[in-house]
């Protein structure tokens, strides 16, 4: 098998299927890619969730370390990003569930919902963090 394969002439440079660089960007395509990226970010973010829970279980000392890091300006920026990723992934996921059921496939509906969910995720993130800053104690 291996011999016959290596005896073949090198593969000709045939055209490949269209890739990201070929397609014209659309809102739905961008949202689909952002869904994957936010999913991967949340995957890494589970480290923060576990750190929070384990630190709380370990006692006041370890929890103080977590609290200092989470409350630093860089910690707050990461947590705001985490909040947006979670909200965008959840709302976008809800949109994909609706699409899975066969609704909102019209041209206008597809683009309107893609944009609406981006806007809603940003507005909700701002709302959540305004709440955090007003209730911080």
């Amino acid at each position, binding site marked *: 098998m291996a011999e016959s394969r290596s005896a073949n002439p090198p593969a000709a440079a045939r055209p490949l299927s269209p890739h990201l660089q070929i397609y014209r960007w659309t809102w739905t395509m961008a949202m689909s890619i952002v869904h994957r990226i936010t999913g991967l970010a949340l995957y890494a973010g*589970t480290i923060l969730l576990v750190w929070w*829970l384990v630190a709380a279980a370990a006692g006041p000392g370890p929890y103080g370390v977590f609290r200092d890091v989470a409350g630093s300006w860089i910690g707050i920026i990461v947590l705001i990003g985490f909040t947006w990723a979670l909200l965008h992934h959840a709302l976008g996921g809800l949109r994909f569930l609706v699409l899975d059921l066969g609704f909102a496939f019209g041209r206008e509906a597809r683009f309107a919902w893609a944009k609406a969910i981006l806007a809603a995720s940003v507005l909700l993130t701002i709302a959540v963090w305004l709440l*955090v800053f007003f209730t911080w104690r």
Partner: protein
Amino acid sequence: MATKTPLALVRGLGAARSGTDEFWRQRLSAVALLPLAAFFIGLLVALAGASHHRVATTLGDGWVAVPLLLLVVACLVHMKIGVQVVIEDYVHDKALKLVLLMANTFFSYAMAIAAAAALVKLSLGG
């Protein structure tokens, strides 16, 4: 094997030998995570900046610990399948793909068990 057509290979359970099981479990866990994620964000807002004592007692309360354990389980299912699909889509080197798929499984279970262990400890009084 050589005489089989591609159609024969994907019939029944399909090339992955698991049919639509992962597709379904990904959507099932997604539906479960919608209310659980809302609960989680609410909890974070309520506990932002709180003392260790208040955080530990809140997380140890059954009304908080049980939804969080549900979140951990749904998260484990969802994140493992999600990243597995990404690996299968973009990593074409067989050895690297095998290693990454194993690492994905190990990481997902490690995160879930660590979170669950912490919640059990807090529930039993820290």
